[in-house]
């Protein structure tokens, strides 16, 4: 059995309630074998609960969980053949690194020689082969994270669950580890479900992303899909750094009216209606005519710059790869490339 042949996951109508609060309102999800699947969402959106349901650490209130076509809804965590890396790593402080990594094998009665071989192999894969005799207390944060990773991969489970595994690392290490993690997943070929609130992490790692909002999955797709075609105002506002600019507008005929300014619309409105207009900061340009605004703030990031404009009551951010050409206090006109506009229903927030 190859890794790719196993590791499919399905959630069917999974509901989770804590007393009178509903944390998950019927989640449906299908994850393919070998996929790097990211659960993305702000805190409290239900992504971690979903991961814990996959792990078997939380019961479901309704619905089913299937792995490789087999129902595991009420199976114990240890019976699911899944491994998890916790945000805190949850290493066993009284054991050495070797003891930690070998623990899941020891628990199923693997003989000592096999454990030792597997431990060394797993440790080597994550680059901590030389630290096996240490205890977690003697490791740096990055080493601890790798130790937790080694403990998860040592048993070759059908499913990896990772709960914000990079959030405790400093920014530089996070970027490096991100790449390594991606390479490792590709090398192992094992299905991976990864929880994060960092949309950049999601974009770089994921084969597909499920975006969680308020206990619901609001969009599933490739990073490109989710970025390019956010299915709702909420997703649009969540993805991207800085996130998409969102402005109330009126769509009449083939024009969009923003603050009294008429802009060309990407298509003709069937009937006049109120919409939310979305435009990514990268698609905002200054022009000789357009929406009148003045420059409130210029942030120079070195390789890029972010300019905050104020147009009427709204703030609009612009991101460009060049140094800013405007200065704080300047009055400008903003133009939006018509084919880069996103339109959402004002009332429901759904993409039009």
């Amino acid at each position, binding site marked *: 059995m190859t890794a790719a042949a196993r590791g499919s996951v399905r959630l069917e109508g999974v509901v989770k309630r804590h007393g009178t609060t509903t944390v998950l309102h019927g989640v449906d999800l299908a994850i393919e074998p070998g996929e790097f699947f990211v659960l993305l969402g702000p805190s409290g959106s239900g992504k971690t609960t979903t991961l814990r349901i996959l792990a*078997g650490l939380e019961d479901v209130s309704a619905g089913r969980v299937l792995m490789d076509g087999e129902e595991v809804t009420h199976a114990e965590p*240890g*019976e699911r053949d899944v491994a998890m890396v916790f945000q*805190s790593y949850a290493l*066993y*402080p009284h054991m050495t690194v070797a003891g930690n990594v070998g623990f899941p094998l020891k628990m199923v009665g693997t003989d000592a020689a096999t454990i030792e071989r597997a431990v060394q192999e797993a440790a080597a894969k994550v680059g901590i082969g030389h630290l096996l005799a240490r205890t*977690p*207390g003697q490791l740096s*944060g990055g080493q601890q994270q790798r130790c937790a990773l080694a403990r998860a991969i040592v048993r070759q489970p059908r499913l990896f669950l990772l709960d914000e595994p990079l959030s405790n690392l400093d920014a530089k290490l996070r970027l490096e580890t991100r790449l390594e993690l991606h390479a490792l997943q590709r090398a192992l070929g094992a299905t991976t479900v990864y929880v994060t609130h960092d949309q950049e992490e999601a974009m770089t790692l994921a084969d597909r992303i499920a975006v969680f909002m308020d206990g619901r999955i609001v969009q599933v797709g490739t990073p490109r899909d989710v970025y390019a075609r956010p299915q709702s105002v909420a997703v649009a506002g969540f993805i991207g750094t800085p996130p998409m600019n969102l402005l109330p507008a009126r769509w009449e005929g083939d024009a969009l009216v923003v603050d009294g300014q008429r802009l060309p619309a990407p298509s003709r409105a069937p009937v006049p209606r109120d919409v939310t207009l979305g435009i990514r900061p990268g698609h905002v340009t200054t022009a000789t005519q357009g929406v009148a605004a003045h420059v409130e703030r210029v942030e120079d990031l070195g390789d890029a710059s972010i300019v905050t404009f104020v147009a009427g009551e709204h703030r609009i951010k612009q991101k460009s790869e060049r140094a800013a050409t405007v200065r704080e206090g300047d009055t400008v006109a903003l133009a939006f490339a018509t084919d880069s506009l996103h339109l959402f229903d004002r009332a429901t927030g759904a993409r039009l």
Partner: protein
Amino acid sequence: MRTATTAAARRRTRNLVLAAIAGVGVAVWVFPVLWGLLTSFKTERDVLAYPPAVFFTPTLANYREVLFGASSILPNLWSSFVVATAATALTMLFAIPAAYALGRLRYPYKRASGFYVLVTQMLPPVGLIIPYYLVLQKIGALDTYVGLAVIYLTFALPFAIWLMVSYFEDVPLEMEEAALLDRAGRMRALWHVILPQVRGGIAVTTIFVFLNAWNEFLFAVVLGGNRVRTVTVAMFNFISVEQTQWAKVAAGAMLAMLPVILIGIFAQRHIVKGLTVGAVKGGGRR
């Protein structure tokens, strides 16, 4: 430069003062023990000598008398050992799972229930002697090891649970979940992962329960008898209404303290280890 030296000087002074305070504290604590130790090697005449003799011809007669004499406390040391060990083992057997469960459970008035446990510890035990006496009498357990151990259990259990709950609470839930995912199951997760984290607490609690049982007098004297006579009760053979045999009391006290001190030394390592393990930064802190 000058400020640096004055700061250093100030620090040195402060350290000296702290050391002096600590020294006085230790001296106050050590003095009675040392005095007892000296007394145990004196003759009764030397005990009463004034000014107190620091140099004297030491004698082992008191120990000989206390160990092998007419009123040897050896059987009583054994009694104490059996009762205290049984009480401690029973207490820990129940307290560990209970503290684990309570440490994991979230229920209303948890704090209040902890306070309640403390309150029961504040009740004067004298009030319970008569009911306990009657209960043990009815079931024929007066003057039995089982009877006394079970009575000690009723006292030690709430306190042991209360003491250990906080240790269990300090073990991150994720660590236990990790063990569950690592296919340990509840029992082995408890055994391999949780208990090693709280061994400092278990050691402290065990010692505490053991010492309390070892030192207990009131219940031992009332609920015990000829068969079960602990060393605390037997010591009174040397403090009779006729005269106090100070040197023999001291020798007996030293012998009664010996196991306690040994346990303390032995367990100290565990306690310290338990504390340092709990304090490492990678222990799963958030």
